[in-house]
């Protein structure tokens, strides 16, 4: 830099930029204690109400739920139920989301494939995916493969639709920048289009993750097996009929804890992976 005149305004620009960072850091890093405080407050109020005013017998207080969960964990039952559920969830989510993201990205890039998939997708999208279960069950029974197929089908749509829209809406001028630099088609796709499409694609994956939990539960609730094969969902429905409310609540707490942990991990990973774009979102 030769001009001294530029010194001052640069200091101004510098300050503006740092403010942007401060705001983003607050968004990215200081958020979870607040969220935790919110959850703790809610649980405390619940506990307080339960131990002073009292609750109906089918609603347990957090302390009672924790005690029941600890007992069931110690006996190994909760762990077995949870692993049966998680196995379905992981398979269903992975298959459905991977297929959805891959096809979504490809159909976003290739107009022909996009048009080809548009028909089947629009036709099947509005169908509540849980209705697939009885149909698949005719042929596979109420088995793990049947449940996994339904979970996968549910996960496919948000993954596909978001990945597709994300690639379609990549800023034209970013692609032109790549062309200006002389980048080939493949390099432009891998190094410009895909990263530009990532935030929205990841938002779709996160939606799929939430649906995976919902469908894990729903597919277990319908025609569930017995013993630990019932999974958390099946166990909760069974516990309702037998009146074992402490089991019901322990299973519910486990689902909440698992879902919350998985989602938090996912968001943390995303924050690491897309720091530049996260900063932009935090600033906007």
């Amino acid at each position, binding site marked *: *830099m*030769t*001009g001294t*005149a*530029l010194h001052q*305004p*640069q200091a101004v*620009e510098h300050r*503006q*930029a*740092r403010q*942007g*960072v401060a705001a*983003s850091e607050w968004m990215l890093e200081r958020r979870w204690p607040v969220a935790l405080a919110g959850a703790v407050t809610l649980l405390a109020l619940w506990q307080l109400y339960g131990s002073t005013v009292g609750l109906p017998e089918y609603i347990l207080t957090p302390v009672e739920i924790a005690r029941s969960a600890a007992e069931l964990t110690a006996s190994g039952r909760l762990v077995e139920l949870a692993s049966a559920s998680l196995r379905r969830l992981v398979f269903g989510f992975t298959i459905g989301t991977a297929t959805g993201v891959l096809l979504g990205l490809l159909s976003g890039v290739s107009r022909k494939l996009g048009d080809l998939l548009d028909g089947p997708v629009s036709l099947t999208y509005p169908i509540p995916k849980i209705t697939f279960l009885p149909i698949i069950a005719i042929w596979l029974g109420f088995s793990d493969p049947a449940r996994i197929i339904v979970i996968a089908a549910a996960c496919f749509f948000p993954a596909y639709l978001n990945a597709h829209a994300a690639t379609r809406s990549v*800023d034209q*001028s*970013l692609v*032109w*920048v*790549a*062309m*200006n*630099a*002389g*980048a080939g088609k493949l*390099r432009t796709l891998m*190094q*410009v289009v895909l*990263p*530009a499409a*990532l935030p929205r694609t990841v938002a779709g994956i996160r939606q799929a993750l939430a649906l995976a939990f919902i469908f894990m539960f729903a597919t277990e609730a319908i025609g569930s097996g017995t013993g630990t094969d019932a999974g958390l969902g099946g166990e909760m429905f069974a516990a309702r009929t037998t009146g074992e409310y402490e089991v019901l609540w322990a299973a519910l707490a486990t689902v909440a804890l698992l879902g919350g942990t998985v989602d938090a991990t996912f968001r943390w990973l995303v924050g690491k992976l*897309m*720091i*530049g*774009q996260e*900063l*932009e979102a*935090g*600033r906007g």
Partner: protein
Amino acid sequence: MSGNIHAPLTSGTATMDPPADQPQLRVASLGKTFSRNRKTVHALQDVSFDVPRGQFLSILGPSGCGKSTLLHIIGGFEQASSGSLLLDGRPVAGPGRDRGMMFQQATLFPWKTIESNVAWPFIVDGHKRGEARERAHELLATVGLSGFERSYPAELSGGMRQRAALARTLGLSPDILLMDEPFGALDAQTRELMQEELTRIWEHSGLTVIFITHDIDEAVFLGDRVLVMGARPGRIIADVDVELGRPRGTTTKKDPQMAEYHSHFWELIRQEAGPQADRNGGSDRS
């Protein structure tokens, strides 16, 4: 004032050089129409001009007159509907590193640091990572962004982002710099500083610059020559040489000639806007 074709600043030193009377860029009867849903927009009609090597050409025009479209065609990003575009006598086939484009909107890759953004074209060109980074650092120093290598675009102000985009474009080692209202979104002070800095960089580089703006003073302060465009259809309504001395700086802005140019261009644009509204009343909905 009619089109004034300038003689190239460089005469042929090597035998491979194009003939001395050939302009670096020749735009001839360029036309561009966009059609969508049976509606047609004549973005450009019969646009012709020559740009000699090393010239700083400003293009001035109201919003929507086709300035970006023209620059996109010169850059090879969009195709003309009619007419021809010759670069050193050869037709333009597509984008190339010989024409470095700075777009109207911010186009840094938000997922890359400033350093990686500027280094990227070098990597595309086959340079090693370390070498690309070194070049990026040099370029960032020329635009006054040393110390911000590891920042992400979102952490920079608008002016700083445009500097980074300029650094990235300069890294292509272009012969022609195409700039589409690069300072349009900046505040007045930052804008003036960027103008002075661009002048300084241009004076040291020997680059040809085509600079689009809708700011009269900016067009005059920067340019050797100003093309004025009118809208619907987009066409050239004036071609004026700017006879202000160089180097230009803060004193140039107080030059009474600046004010004369200002009112001259203002008058041209006003005349264009007047009858324009009547003439196009029913013919061209867009």
